[in-house]
């Protein structure tokens, strides 16, 4: 009989090994899935995980890693604080959308004025504030009325999506767009564009912000009182109370932080890689970031690596879609599987498996 035995101390080995093992399991089961779809599993896996980095077109794909990875890192870093403290913001996708709408709206309001020193910083501020405000809704509802922030934040994603569609069709629609939905292209409006900082590198301001966020998160968690209180509140809420942590204040700070970073990610996306507010502007970064946060063990460096891996599956997925004709849903399935396996093998960190003979 297999039994699980609690370890006195969490295993250091498995803390690092579980993410790798779950990636491996995902590849194996994913491969079986692709085989069932009539593909050669080895070719499919190579296309998804290796081609973006090492194929003849990798000069095109490699910079894409920054573009896909930066919003994932920004959002996941924000989420990781809440997840450590036991505050479950599932609605980063909504905060991302609102951040993009606010940032774009500020930029478009100044069109065609030329004053980059004023407009772009204002847009950054507006994006951060928009994401923060959207996250404050579940925050205030929870601290005031005890609602569940998981449900409220998730449902607000759908509200945000409707708002996005109405903005793309209404107030923010391009007046010169012959009636097509979608706003003016911000990346062609120099005062508001989030441009590449180095030619051909895809390094835009969002990438810079993501790296800064990683460093700040690392310092906060390892050296600052705030990070200590976050960890304490997540592991032992009563002990946190005893240490003088105000739980409601911590909930609002965590939600506000994740909302702000998600809003920033949305703003950098809309003014750069996406360029405009459109009905289908959001592609699920807010949800994928949840996987990134857990895959990265809620640790800043881990998140950086996990975001790289996830960005890879996005890019590789697109290649597989066009070259092998794999359905797009298969890639989402692969990402979902990754989280599923991670949570499943995570049990090994705190438990060890022992074999026992059946009892009489």
């Amino acid at each position, binding site marked *: 009989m297999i039994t699980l035995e609690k370890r006195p101390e969490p295993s250091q080995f498995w803390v690092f090994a579980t993410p790798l093992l779950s990636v491996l399991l995902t590849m194996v089961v994913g491969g079986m899935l692709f085989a069932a779809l009539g593909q050669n599993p080895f070719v499919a896996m190579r296309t998804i995980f290796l081609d973006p980095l090492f194929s003849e077109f990798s000069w095109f794909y490699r910079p894409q890693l920054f573009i896909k990875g930066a919003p994932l890192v920004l959002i996941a870093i924000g989420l990781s604080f809440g997840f450590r403290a036991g505050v479950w913001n599932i609605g980063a996708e909504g905060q991302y959308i609102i951040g993009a709408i606010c940032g774009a709206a500020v930029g478009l309001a100044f069109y065609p004025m030329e004053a980059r020193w004023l407009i772009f910083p204002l847009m950054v501020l507006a994006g951060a504030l928009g994401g923060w405000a959207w996250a404050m809704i579940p925050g205030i509802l929870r601290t005031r009325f005890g609602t569940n922030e998981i449900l409220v934040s998730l449902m607000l994603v759908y509200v945000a999506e409707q708002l996005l569609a109405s903005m793309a069709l209404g107030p923010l629609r391009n007046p010169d767009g012959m009636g097509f939905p979608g706003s003016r292209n911000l990346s062609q409006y120099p005062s508001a564009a989030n441009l590449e900082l180095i030619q051909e590198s895809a390094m835009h301001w969002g990438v810079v912000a993501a790296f800064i966020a990683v460093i700040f998160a690392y310092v906060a968690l390892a050296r600052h009182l705030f990070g200590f209180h976050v*960890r304490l509140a997540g592991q*032992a809420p009563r002990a946190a*109370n005893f240490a003088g942590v105000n739980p409601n204040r911590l909930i609002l700070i965590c939600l506000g932080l994740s909302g702000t970073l998600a809003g920033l990610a949305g703003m950098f996306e809309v003014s750069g890689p996406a360029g405009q507010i459109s009905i289908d502007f959001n592609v699920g970064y807010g949800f994928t970031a949840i996987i990134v946060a857990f895959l990265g063990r809620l640790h800043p460096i881990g998140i950086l690596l996990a975001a790289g891996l996830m960005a890879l599956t996005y890019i590789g997925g697109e290649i597989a879609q066009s070259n092998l004709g794999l359905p797009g849903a298969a890639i989402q399935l692969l990402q979902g599987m990754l989280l599923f396996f991670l949570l499943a093998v995570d049990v090994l960190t705190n438990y060890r498996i022992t074999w026992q003979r059946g009892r009489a």
Partner: protein
Amino acid sequence: MSALLKIDGLTKAYPAVIANNNISFDIQQGEIHALLGENGAGKSTLVKAIYGLVKPDTGIMHLNDAPFAPAEPRVARSAGVAMVFQHFSLFDALSVAENIALGMERPPPQHKIAQQVRVVSNRYGLPLDPDRIVGDLSAGERQRVEIIRCLLQDPKLLIMDEPTSVLTPQEVGILFKTLRKLSQEGTAILYISHKLEEIRELCETATILRGGEVVATCDPRTTSAGEMAEMMVGRVLHVPERAAGDVGPVVLSLKNMSAPAPNAFGTALSDITFDVKAGEILGIGGVAGNGQDELVAALSGEVTVPAGMIQLKHDDIGRLGVNARRKMGLLAAPEERMGHAAAPDMSLTENALMTGLARKRLSHRGFLRWPAARAFAKDVIQAFDVRTPGPANMARSLSGGNLQKFVIGREILQAPDVFVVNQPTWGVDASAAAAIRQALLDLTAKGAAVVCISQDLDELMEISDRFCALNGGQLSEPVAAQGLSVEQIGLMLGGAQQMDDAHV
């Protein structure tokens, strides 16, 4: 007459420790047999083996001369072995009769159970109404539910695990009468405890365990408590001694402090008034659940109260939070170690940081000073003899007694002016308990005031200067502890407000 239960060479080893090593003893029919030992001596493992919860590695048991190797509690129960656990497994929302029915294989209809409960409770002098909701019962009454549940099975051997830890002296008296009656009728009782006076009063034989082995068997009626304690601990026990320090001015003063119950099962505090002077220990007795946790929370600052209710030296601190009170010299150690006084999944360094931040200056402008925190954790470990490889170890890897020493030491090394502690030696072995009590006495000798809340009356009588009792969220008037009789204490705990009788 052959023995009811013969245990022969029973051994049970766990990966890191041999819990029971070649244990042999007999329990006679109708005998009240004490099983005595410190925490970790192997008492629990042994009774779990008898009750079928643990399968021994080697060794044979015989019940009434028939081989007895229960694979699960159901088998043990049908063979006539019943057990009352230290922690009750009752559903608060159900009635007494419904709770009893839940434990049965084929429960008869409710009214029959209710009738049986009345019969048994009358016969053994255990007053209990089968229709009452368990959530409304006191700890003593809950224990009666468990006992009656066992008695309905008509057991030959009744195992009781630390039954008096939750009872008032009066309730203990009722329990002992019942147990004596059962024993006269031929039911053997295996009585687990570390309270020596109780065992001397009740039991006919005592088997003493130490380090998983039987070290002695004695007749507790003719053996002194001191002798038994030495057999249990294996060396002469250190009795806390107090330096006769001077009692100084009042440092902590509560005036008609009231606080609403924090939740549905909590206790509201009403009109609590007391003064504590520098250099004295105020002992607060009472059965758990009478407002102890709430009182500690209100004193520590986890719960704030309106202005004017708590005064620390010259300052009104009722509205201040935990860390503000810490800075002013009021420190506290709550009862629950895991998850309240300490975070189990964090290192001892981090746990030292938890409350040491304000007074030990372990942070600078919000940034943590890890080396200072590590040094502080090391100091605590060293000064209080905490057995652990080092400050990097998780709190959950420490045994209960060691973690308690760490938690108490962490506060004491911050040199409090007032120290509030709840259940300082709960679940702690005798030598660690003695060390903790000594530390509290040393603290008062240095001029600090201590408020010690405990359910262990012997402990309170040993260390307190004045004593009062918490009952239903109300506090009796403190009286001098010296010379208080057990009856007076019992009346105070029971909430009798004729304090004139209790005055010495």
